[in-house]
């Protein structure tokens, strides 16, 4: 019952927000924040509960059911938390824009739909919420107009392709097993033939692959992330894209079942290895493409694709460690990327919508909180020890190495290096280097932006030092999939081949740091100078020309640029052009000449004759 009320609150809150906006914009803002926080609290209260198959609705005589278990709780908590933070972040960011009622309604609606997805226990509700999420996302992506419109179309077309695949798959399952409830399907599917299983998994793989932007299907993502309003970019990257990961988990481990999922032989290789390789490709290529980007959000967007690869890799590889790593990375990555988008948003907000990395710089003094957020965010993305992603990445690498898949591990590790390069560029070009003169008078980011940034930054450190907090939940998830339980404690994970102990690392660095700090204090006190007071080897440096942030990786560009085209995007673009041409051709059928039209009728009749005269007599 609580779930039903929860979802009703979520959806109802969205619509009420819209109408409140007609009354007063202040009221609407407070209400939106209130609703999203309420949802977060409500979801948090569900911790540890597991209620299976609570029916809430009838649709064509099928009972639709909801459930909460550790998997859905994990995702629901993340969804509601990021949702609430983004709404808070929006308060100032969106101030003064048009159609705010609509914006807040859609934000809450996306949120509600995602909650629906994770709580759905039958495939129809899953699909319904999935589609609501798709179209409300589409509207939000298009919200900014201009360049956002093609991005929105790109998104929704790919999303529709995915949903149609899923739709087909769902009904195929329904027709074959006569039930829509996930737990019952899981029981029934065991007896299915292996060809059918591959078919189903491929269908769903396409859907979730598109949503989580696995490599050849990722092309919607860079544009969508870049063009949507930044708080929504955060939601989009943080949770919405990760619904694909949730889908993968759900379908591979709950519906198909783990033992079964690994047995599938897809001709050349095992199904999950193919997926692993897709994940590996997804890690490497987008991360390197990200280096070439000069738009801060686009850079992060390409990262979003790349980091998605880790999750897919971990999940598809599917040992308890890898799976735990994949799931944990989902959370960790989300925290980081939301944080990064928010600091971009703060910069954008203060710099008048500028995101071009070549024209920013030196904002560290002006916006320290945003900088701190960005610093922790990139550390997290890189996976520096003591930040959250370190743990998840470590788990994934370790699995890959120990299970003798060094090539996958290579992709993962080299992806990390690509990440370092690109996110460092992001940090440096935004916050470090010289401050352009026009940004001299920029103020700090507003409080409503600082709050989420601070919360998320502390989360990065918290989960980095005490990874046991999320890992405990994840442990229950993977045991519910039928994997071995992990030996998790609060500060790490112990296993037979190499133990991770973050507290050791933490103390080591802390001690080393304090030693060095003392050494530092011993030395003669330095005196502060302004940023521009630099050693230039006696050469004259004209003002404003210090900034070497433009074309940060120029030497590298020369080498890698020719190889780093987005072939998938090119291919889809080509496909679109072909289709457009084809459509132009097909239209010519309706030539405007009524004589032809009569001929069509005659032709049809004659054709029917020939077809039918071969038919039976009756």
């Amino acid at each position, binding site marked *: 019952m609580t779930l039903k009320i929860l979802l009703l609150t979520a959806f109802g809150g969205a619509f009420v927000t819209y109408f409140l906006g007609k009354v007063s914009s202040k009221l609407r803002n407070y209400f939106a924040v209130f609703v999203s926080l309420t949802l977060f609290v409500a979801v948090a209260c569900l911790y540890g509960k597991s209620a299976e198959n609570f029916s809430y609705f009838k649709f*064509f005589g099928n009972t639709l059911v909801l459930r909460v278990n550790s998997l859905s709780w994990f995702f629901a908590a993340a969804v509601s938390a990021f949702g609430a933070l983004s709404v808070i972040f929006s308060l100032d960011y969106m101030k003064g824009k048009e159609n705010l009622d609509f914006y807040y309604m859609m934000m809450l609606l996306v949120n509600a739909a995602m909650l629906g997805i994770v709580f759905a226990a039958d495939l129809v509700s899953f699909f319904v919420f999935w589609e609501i999420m798709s179209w409300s996302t589409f509207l939000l992506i298009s919200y900014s107009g201009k360049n956002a419109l093609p991005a929105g179309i790109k998104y929704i077309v790919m999303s529709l392709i995915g949903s149609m695949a899923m739709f087909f798959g769902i*009904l195929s399952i329904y027709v074959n097993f006569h039930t829509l409830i996930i737990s019952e399907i899981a029981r029934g599917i065991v007896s299915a033939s292996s060809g059918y299983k591959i078919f189903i998994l491929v269908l769903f793989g396409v859907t979730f692959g598109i949503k989580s932007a696995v490599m050849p299907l990722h092309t919607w993502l860079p544009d969508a992330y870049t063009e949507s309003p930044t708080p929504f970019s955060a939601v989009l990257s943080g949770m919405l894209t990760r619904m694909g990961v949730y889908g993968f988990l759900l379908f591979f481990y709950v519906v198909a079942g783990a033992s079964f999922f690994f047995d599938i032989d897809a001709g050349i290789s095992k199904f999950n290895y193919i997926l692993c390789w897709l994940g590996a490709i997804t890690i490497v290529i987008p991360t390197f493409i990200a280096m070439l980007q000069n738009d801060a959000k686009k850079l992060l967007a390409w990262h979003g694709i790349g980091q998605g690869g880790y999750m897919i890799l971990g999940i598809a590889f599917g040992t308890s460690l890898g799976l735990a790593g994949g799931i944990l990375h989902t959370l960790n990555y989300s925290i980081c990327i939301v944080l990064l988008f928010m600091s971009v948003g703060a910069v954008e907000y203060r710099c008048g919508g500028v995101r071009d990395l070549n024209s920013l710089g030196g904002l560290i003094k002006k916006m320290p909180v945003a900088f701190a957020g960005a610093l922790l965010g990139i550390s997290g993305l890189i996976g520096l020890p003591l930040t959250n992603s370190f743990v998840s990445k470590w788990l994934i690498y370790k699995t890959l190495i120990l299970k003798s898949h060094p090539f996958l591990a290579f992709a993962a590790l080299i992806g990390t290096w690509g990440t370092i390069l690109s996110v460092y560029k992001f940090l440096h070009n935004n916050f470090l280097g010289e401050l352009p003169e026009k940004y001299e008078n920029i103020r700090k980011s507003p409080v409503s932006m600082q709050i989420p940034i601070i919360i998320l930054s502390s989360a990065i450190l918290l989960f980095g030092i005490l990874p046991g907090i999320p890992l405990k939940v994840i442990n229950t998830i993977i045991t519910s999939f039928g994997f071995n339980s992990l030996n998790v404690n609060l500060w790490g994970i112990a296993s037979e081949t190499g133990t991770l102990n973050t507290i050791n690392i933490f103390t080591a660095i802390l001690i080393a740091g304090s030693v060095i700090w003392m050494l530092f204090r011993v030395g003669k006190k330095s005196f502060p100078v302004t940023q521009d007071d630099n050693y230039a080897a006696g050469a004259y440096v004209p003002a404003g020309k210090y900034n070497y942030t433009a074309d940060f990786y120029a030497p590298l560009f020369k080498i890698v640029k020719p190889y780093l085209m987005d072939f998938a995007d090119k291919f889809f673009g080509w496909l679109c052009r072909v289709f457009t041409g084809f459509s132009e051709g097909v239209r010519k059928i309706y030539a405007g000449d009524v004589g032809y039209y009569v001929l069509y009728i005659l032709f049809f009749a004659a054709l029917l004759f020939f077809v039918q005269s071969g038919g039976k007599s009756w």
Partner: protein
Amino acid sequence: MVVSPVLLIAVPLLLAFIAPLCGKAAKYIPPAGALFNLILSVILIPTVLKSPMIVSIGGFPPPFCINLFVGPLGIFFAALISLAGFLISIYALSYIRERAVGKYHTLYLLLLTGATGVVLTGDIFNLFVFYEILCISSYALTAHNAHWHRHGTEAAVKYLIQGSVGSAFILLAIGMLYGFFGTLNMADLAKHIARAHSSVLFIPLTFFIAGFGVEAAIFPLNAWLPDAHSVSPAPISAIFSGIAIEIGVYAIMRVVFTLFGAPLSVMSVLLIVGLLTLLVGEICAFRQNNIKRMSAYSSIGQIGLIVFAFGLATKSGITAGLFQITSHALSKILLFLTIGYMIYSIRMKNYPDKYVTEIEINSLNGLGKKMPLTSLGFAIAAFSLIGFPPFIGFSSKLLIVKAALLKGGIYAVLMGIALIATVIEGAYFLKVVQGIYFRKGEVEGIKENNVFILVPFFILAALIIFAGIYPGILTKILNSSSGELLNRIGYIGRLPG
């Protein structure tokens, strides 16, 4: 007391005859007639669901006189027609306000009557007669205000030529059937056909499909549709897309299922034709710049889906097809009406003296702010047509896919191809939605304040959402309707004597 269903035809006819005498008040007659029909058909539904009503005209036993066969299918269609007719006529009260207004309303009511007659009658020639009423009023309404409407005239001429060829085919087929079996009553014909072992029966069937196919707008026969639907005034486009072409489909299905017992070869041809219609319609719509023409092509696509569903020839398939008819009718009517109101507002602002019924998609840019309710209606209709939940289009798509998969094998593959069309549909409709809401346009001074126009939007949108969330309200009548189509023996058995 049971009301005679014949009133469903007689009363609107009477009103249609009265209409020309009413002068300016003529515009209130179509809503009155449609409302009467709506109430009557809803009242009749429970009775009909128990057992179909056979109403003979003139008081003779049925094979010898014309009879109405008021089964679940017929009453379902009658209710749908009158519902659509009622809403559109309310809309038209203030939308159609120039020139030949009285004639417009008379013809409109005649169109509704013709459609109702087609779905209720149990006599093949009578069906043809009502079909002709429908067609002639359609031709004329396409060319409404022909003197000011260059494209309307052209479209009407073309429509008329193709429609006449189709009608001739139907009449030929009826003649042949009469020649073979000497009767015109459909139940009687079905009985004979079921017994016959003739290798040439496919010829009248072919002519029937080719003839009704023109009105049903299946693939190569639908060249009139984009023209006629795009140039006629919005209420007419709406009734065409929402009702008229569905009547064509009904006629085909009645002939194929009831008269000819759905032979496999025909059904597979229909399936392929439906698929082709779907794909061609959506592909053509993809590159349209004219919003109404785009919607018209989308209608072709939806009709294709309907025919595809019927072509499955299973109970679930037919139920799905009927559901799709409902969903398409509601959504497309809402779509055309909202588009019409937008066009109307733009026209009133920019060139009040010209008679404009179609417009470029770009002209709608930015209307979302000035006409919020209309734009919302458009968005809901578009979403429903694409098949997004929680709108009704989703339920119908669900049923169709389910039906195809239940049949399995090659049908599932074809269904997979058909789903591609949804993607295309999504692409072009959502582009328009984006334009309306998120693009900037010259929309100064445009307002929406006409209650008569907005009320139908509201009702239709509410129905779309309600039926999308609770599709169960329709399943009972649709199930027995599909039962009626499939149960040929039952249909024959209803014939007294």
